């Protein structure tokens, strides 16, 4: 698992190919370069989608959809734009399209379905190596579990704002670009989302 808080654009060290170089190669339809770009960014995209929709199987499919859209749209990507912001914008669109289709946005229902591992025979030759599960990091953390369930009760916009700011580390302007709203709206959403989270977590503490 990649460490939290590192910038997705800073994925390359001195001896590695930079995102910029990879993007240029992808724009010339170099699939190998795209594969490298995917490996570099898939963790952040998947974490973002999974935290938004709380469903592993759908998050997996939607992350695929995000990267396929990225591949198709890369020829139009302008080098002066920040790749990570652009990537989060595509992720935002894919997630919101999905939510719209499922019509769960207004109802606030969140499907907590989990991929059934028992359906795959242990040791089967076709079983792919499993590296990590999204909730692994939280499984042994009570506070993590509480934060996760509090996040799930926020509305979609507030949840996304919190995730982009606190988890993905985007600045206010980047959040506004990703979510397609004004800076003032970002500030307001952050304020109310944080206040709601504080209330929810304090309420739970009170119950305990």
């Amino acid at each position, binding site marked *: 698992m990649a460490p939290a808080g590192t910038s997705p654009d800073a994925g390359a060290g001195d001896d590695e190919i930079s995102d910029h170089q990879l993007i240029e190669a992808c724009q010339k339809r170099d*699939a190998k370069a795209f594969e490298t770009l995917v490996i570099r960014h898939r*963790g952040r995209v*998947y974490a973002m989608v999974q935290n938004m929709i709380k469903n592993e199987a759908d998050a*997996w499919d939607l992350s695929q959809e995000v990267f396929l859209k990225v591949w198709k749209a890369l020829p139009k990507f302008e080098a002066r734009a920040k790749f990570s912001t652009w990537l989060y914008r595509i992720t935002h669109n894919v997630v919101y399209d999905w939510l719209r289709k499922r019509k769960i946005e207004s109802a606030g229902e969140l499907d907590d379905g989990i991929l059934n591992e028992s359906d795959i025979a242990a040791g089967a030759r076709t079983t792919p190596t499993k590296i990590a*599960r999204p909730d692994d990091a939280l499984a042994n953390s009570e506070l993590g579990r509480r934060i996760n369930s509090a996040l799930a009760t926020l509305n979609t916009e507030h949840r996304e704002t919190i*995730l982009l700011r*606190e988890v993905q580390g985007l600045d206010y302007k980047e959040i506004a670009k990703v979510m397609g709203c004004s800076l003032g709206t970002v500030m307001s959403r952050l304020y109310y989302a944080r206040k709601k989270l504080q209330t929810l977590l304090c309420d739970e503490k009170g119950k305990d």
Partner: protein
Amino acid sequence: MKKEKTEELIVKWIDGQLTSEEEVQLAGLFQENENLEAELQEMKSVSESVTEKIPASVDPPYCDFFGSQLMRKVDLEIQSRTPSKIGERLVKSFQWAWAPVGALALVLSFFAGHRISRPAEVTAAQEQEEGRLIQFLPTVYFAGESLEAEVISDSDGDVSAIFVHGLAAIRDDIDFATITTGAELPKSYARSEARRFD
């Protein structure tokens, strides 16, 4: 102070992004409400917990399969946008044929004429009107049985479109420029029959 401005100050204070001027403004708010600072400290610690406990990056389950599946879709996408090499070669190899075919079609459309078909029921008045209009239409000759042509004109006969269907060779020994009547053409050149004017 406006509500929006207060919210902005609080958000920026939690993120440690206040300017010195904004710090003074917030200090004023702290003085007005002595519980505010403690409240914001709690809010800040919640934000820090979210950053600490929710991972920013999590590899998707079965990430090897994730990669291979995605690249398979990318390959399909590439293939769908690239025309098959065989098809491309065939198209290229027949490119030379388009020029003579086009030229032939132009020549034939110039000399070929129109065929006017008759509707099932035509009233006497319509027939009379058609007779008047038909005289303004050109007589068209067909170069052989394999060729068909039709003329679509406006009611004044000022604008015409000639559609030619099929291909037929034009004999080199005929000087079309000097021919004025169908009688001067070989028998294989059939005269069009004027039947209806649309």
